[in-house]
């Protein structure tokens, strides 16, 4: 896409800034106090989340939550990239799927232990993200969307080729074969597929990924990314390398997708071309957008919501209808998604409350 084609729209967009997908108050900069606060929040969330299996009674509900958390990790990566660098990807299935297939191929064809295969999966998916990212992050806007879509779909077509059947199993998929003594995260194959024993793995992964993305987003790199997103040319003229930060952001978000893919494969014990499909690419992006990509919680909320909707309406197939409606409604009327919309709604209330508290404590405006 040419600069000339986008610039008029960008120029005319000032009054519509509030309507932007990635709108959020500036939230960069990281000091020791903030880092400490983030760590405490992450630890609390981690501990609270680990109690979920004792609160949620049914294994079925827990399995849906787990599925939602895994999709959430994928959506987090997509949302991070879209929010921090304005690059909207329809091809993160490439990393998600590659990582999942590497686990399956590693355990069943190459006789790897589950731990090694998981590591290979994350590394392989991330390396692929670096390789593809090196080619595509220079292309902005619609071109980026199309290129990522093309890479993702090319991998899907490659995976289902008849000549690939010995490796990927083509349309039949591939079952993980782990030896009975093999274990990863201290769990053997049966425990990995079992809901209550797998839940801590998924939850810890989610919190770690979210915390890592938060730190990266608030670091100096995040600041540079923000500058590049707002005006690439200006950032370049100010002496910043605008290529490397975007590549790093792409790789980080690809790594999140890879982690999600590895966990999915380990939990399901089975990988099918579905993990590379256009539908998965679209749904994970939609989950991130509907939840709200400008926040850390948004994509996870969107993903869990999607899984529950799918479960509720999947039997008669209407999930597609509701997903479409949700996407249109959010994009047209609730910029910032569910979480962004809520926090904007609650913003005045929160500010008023904070002012009351400060007044009660006799503090001046601006002191925390």
């Amino acid at each position, binding site marked *: 896409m040419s600069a000339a084609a986008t610039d008029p*729209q960008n120029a005319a967009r000032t009054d519509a800034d509030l309507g932007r997908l990635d709108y959020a108050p500036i939230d960069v900069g990281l000091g020791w106090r903030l880092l400490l606060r983030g760590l405490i929040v992450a630890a609390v969330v981690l501990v609270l989340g680990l109690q979920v299996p004792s609160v949620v009674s049914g294994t079925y509900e827990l399995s849906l939550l787990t599925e939602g958390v895994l999709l959430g990790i994928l959506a987090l990566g997509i949302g991070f990239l879209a929010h921090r660098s304005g690059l909207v990807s329809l091809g993160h299935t490439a990393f998600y799927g590659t990582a999942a297939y590497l686990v399956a191929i590693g355990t069943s064809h190459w006789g790897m232990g589950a731990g090694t295969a998981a590591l290979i999966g994350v590394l392989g998916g991330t390396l692929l993200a670096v390789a593809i990212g090196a080619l595509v992050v220079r292309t902005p806007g619609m071109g980026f969307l199309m290129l990522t*879509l*093309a890479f993702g779909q090319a991998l899907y*077509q490659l995976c289902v080729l008849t000549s690939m059947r010995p490796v990927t199993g083509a349309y039949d998929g591939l079952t993980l074969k782990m030896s009975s003594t093999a274990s990863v995260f201290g769990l053997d194959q049966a425990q990995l597929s079992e809901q209550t024993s797998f839940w801590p793995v998924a939850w810890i992964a989610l919190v770690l990924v979210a915390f890592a993305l938060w730190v990266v987003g608030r670091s100096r790199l995040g600041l540079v990314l923000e500058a590049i997103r707002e005006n690439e040319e200006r950032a370049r003229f100010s002496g910043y390398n605008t290529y490397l930060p975007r590549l790093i952001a792409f790789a980080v978000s690809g790594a999140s997708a890879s982690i999600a893919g590895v966990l999915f494969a380990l939990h399901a014990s089975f990988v099918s071309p579905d993990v590379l499909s*256009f539908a998965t690419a679209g749904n994970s992006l939609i989950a991130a957008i509907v939840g709200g990509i400008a926040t850390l919680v948004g994509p996870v909320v969107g993903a869990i919501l999607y899984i529950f909707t799918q479960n509720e309406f999947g039997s008669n197939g209407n999930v597609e209808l509701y997903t479409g409606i949700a996407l249109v409604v959010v994009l047209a009327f609730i910029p910032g998604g569910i979480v962004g919309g809520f926090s904007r709604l609650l913003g005045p209330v929160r500010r008023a409350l904070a002012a009351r508290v400060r007044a009660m404590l006799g503090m001046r405006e601006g002191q925390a």
Partner: protein
Amino acid sequence: MNLAQLLNGLALGALLMILSSGLAMIYGLRGVMNFAHGALYMLGAYVAYATCTRVSWWLALLVVPAVLAIVGALLELTTFRRLQRRSPIEVGLVTFGLALIVNRIVILIWGEETLPVNAPKALQGSVTFLGTSYPAYRLLIIGVAAVLAIGLVLWLSRSRTGLHVRAASHDTETSAVLGINVDRVSMTVVALGAALAGLAGALAAPDLSVNPEMGQLILINVLIVVVVGGIGSIGGAMLAGLGLGIVQTIGAVLVPSVATLVPYAALIVVLLWRPTGLAGKRTA
């Protein structure tokens, strides 16, 4: 490879050409990649099925473009016009959502199974063409596409509206300043693009039969065609569509194992080598 295979390629290329010309026109004017284009194509095929089972296939050739033009006008009014100040990516994603909705509505009306559409009696057999026996119906597809392509090119290059479309595609802001009513031009283009997509669906229906997945299947190829041809270039998109149809069909004969990868490889090579597409405007 023989003449029949080349003609098969031409028939597929003709469909891609009709679809991608509409998509390229909408992109040129609104800067938005219309992800609902596949859904419009599918809707066209289903409306053709409905007309065909009740009256006749020939009537479908008139009804489908009319119905789809109305759908296109609604799309312009509710989406492209209302959201024209938003970023093109967001509007593109809105059309993605609309495509999901249309898909489901079509399934709720006509069901998920594949429906057969019979070509009119006169066209069901084969004819001898340049010494090769070839299905008459596919020759009709090629013929209609050729007529449409010539008509479209003449319309764009000779008529006043065509001039406005080209001007607005080139530079929307300046055209508006010079007194071109961009909203009205866009209305014409989106309605026409939708009508063409529907017509492509109606033409494809007897040849490929009708099912809910047909829109999504062809959408990716059409998107690829438009990007390869050069974003915003209508002529480039038409040529790329024709070319991809031929390359894909011949590829399926020569190297069947990897033929499905051909469009993706083409897209990746072209975009990395020439980011604006083969016929795209050269900008910084």
